[in-house]
């Protein structure tokens, strides 16, 4: 077991996943990318992440629903969760924080600071 931070990232946009991968590689993360909520729910227990990063608007299961489902998995009840979203209007941010998210990172995000922003919430 490495000392890397185990990050579960749920994002249905492949381009964004690729950018995020570039941004977070060599920053001390073990990354698991899931392209849908259901995939995340399926793989999360086996991965047992230290932190969860979620997109909000996704086809199929959306971000908040996915988080709700992940919370039902034992061991993930209180895992820090962050949203990475283009939905940045104040009421939208407030709603996401109310779901128990630690932080809402706005898209477009700064590639250079993304890793630090995530680590801040650990």
């Amino acid at each position, binding site marked *: 077991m490495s000392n890397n931070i185990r990050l579960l990232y749920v994002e249905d*946009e492949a*381009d*964004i996943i*690729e*950018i*995020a991968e*570039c*941004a977070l590689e060599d920053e001390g993360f073990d990354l698991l990318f899931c392209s849908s909520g259901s995939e995340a729910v399926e793989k999360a227990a086996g991965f047992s992440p230290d932190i969860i990063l979620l997109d909000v*608007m996704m086809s199929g299961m959306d971000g908040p629903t996915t988080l709700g489902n992940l919370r039902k998995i034992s061991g993930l009840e209180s895992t820090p969760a962050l949203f990475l*979203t*283009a*939905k*940045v*209007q*104040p009421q*939208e941010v407030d709603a996401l924080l109310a779901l128990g998210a630690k932080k809402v990172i*706005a*898209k*477009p*995000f*700064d*590639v*250079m600071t993304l890793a630090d922003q995530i680590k801040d919430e650990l």
Partner: protein
Amino acid sequence: MRRYALNIPVSTAVIIGLLVSAVVFINVKHREEQELRQKFNHIAFNIAKDLEKEVNTQLYTLGSITTFFETAEFVDRYDFYALATPLYKRSSAFQAIEWIPIVSSAEQARYESFAQFDGFSDFRFFEKNAKGERIPAANRDVYYPTFYLEPYQGNEVALGYDLGSESARLAAINEALKSKSTTASSPVTLIQGDHSRPATLIFTPIFKKEKPNSPKRHITGFIVGAVQINHLLRNISPSKYSNASTLKNLNVTLFETNNRENRIYISSKNYPKLTAPSYRKSTKPTMRNIQEIQVANKTWEVLTSVSHYEYFFLPNLNPLYAAGISMLFFITLIIYLISLLKQKVHAENNLKEKTASLISSEKSLQATVENMADGLVTIDNKGTIQSFNNAAEGIFGYSQMQVIGKNVSLLMPELTRSKYDSYLKKYSETGKKKTIGIGLEVEGLRSNGALISIDLSASEITIDDQAILVCITRDITEQKKLERMKNEFISTVSHELRTPLTSIRGSLSIIINKSQDDFSDKTKRMLATAERNSKRLGQLINDILDLEKLDAGMLSFKEDVLHANAIAEAAMEASEAYAKTYHITLSIQCQPPDLMILGNEGRLLQVLANLLSNAIKFSPAASQVKIEVSHSDTMVRFTVFDQGEGVSETFRPYIFERFSQADGSDTRERGGTGLGLNISRAIVEKHKGKINFYRTPENETAFYFEIPIFSPK
């Protein structure tokens, strides 16, 4: 209509006034009359009594002469003179006092010669014929000659007249002989004196004993008093009985009456002619009084009256005064009534006009209310709907008839209803009004059960001590729907734009910062340009979102108590990297003390960042941009100084407007959305502050904004 309204009551008042005046007149007159009548009766009674007394006094005085005759052996002419003179002198009523002996035919000559001896040489017993001529007395068994006579002067013609020759006199003589008492004759005309005046003769019998010491007596003659009845009446003066001026002209008429059917007129006072006045009761309202008096054996009636003329025109003005006063009262009343009626008519006309104008204004108000575009619902303090206009019918889908009188909760969904109920309960408990206010968005319930969004403005008014809630409602369901769609659209668009932008920016950033590859300088420049413009695109998206919120009036934010200096420092720090790319040095200068402000940190930083980025962009290379925090008594001012060219004269008026940039070429070169200052102004104004710029004497451009100092209480 107006005329009649005035005329009927007034003419009624006039008639009533006249009637009442007449009644008052008649009543007072009647009372006055009663009083007068009483007075009059009293006078009449006294007149009769005095007459009776006077006549009987005469009778009594005559008695003194008869007594002398009865006792003396012989009474000569001189004796008679001595006896009678004081009597007739005392009473003006006596025309003459006479001695009438009873003389048989055998003694006639002796008596005649006896008188002749006394000096009356042509003395004869005589009588008068039908023509009134003096003729010797006819042959009779008994004569009743006038033998002694006083006063002689004026009565001489009567000497020797045989009283038995005339029926009225003879009747009185016979009655006296029969009754052996004094009698009075019916009215006669005296032989002497005024023929037009009636007189009565009073016969007082003279008794002689047939023999001395014999109790038996017989009548030997009479002492006769000729009483002028006029003279008796002449002495009656009403002023002696009353000072009532109305009773000065009394008529007193004497009748002799021994039975009711046979009255004989004797004499009267105040009737100029000796013609008997009508004894029958007049139909005219005269005052009459009849008293009976006894004169010897005769009964006289004393009829006292006041003539109709005098009675009717009594100079007593009391009734007239009374009637006048009552008339005056009614005239005043009528005048008052007329003025009252005029006022009333005036007031009625005024009222009509006012009512008409009220009705028309009411109608126009009604029409306005009915046809206004907004729904108008009024409810009382129990929540009962009192009015419901056309627009309200359209909004809620109920007709007026269906809702008026019902509770307003009918128009509310369950949630609003319970809120409303608690408000109403609180209101009725505390009486405290809670202004519901203007522009409140509430949910309503349509008759078909659909929920609708309503813009509600409610205010409480008081009419006749009754609190009424006036609610103006506007159906904003469609508007809300559109708004929601717009929000969703913007949210979606911004999301959809951001997602690819994230990829672009991320990629560029990774290439520039993380790539190990060597790029030509040209490629590096192109990559930098691409990255800068991708950032600009991101800013544009943010600005558009802000603008949308500004337009919706929803640029709301949480306010915290902030340190002004810390804000300025944070802003400088955030812009440091950007400044570096333009080779600009940033500096900060804070005037102590460190003041507190109330505001949203993010938004204030946004304003400062906007000012700083503008300053950096428009500064010449290697120049300085300075942030200064200063303050007045009430405001904290943040100023950003740069050494750029400043704002051109023509652009100044538009600098805070949307999409405004000094010129096209600059825009492209310097970047920016043209929305920054517009958004900044909106944010500053939200903080109750203002934003502006000026040129310093040192040729610097200074953009500043100031917001109120926060002072905790």
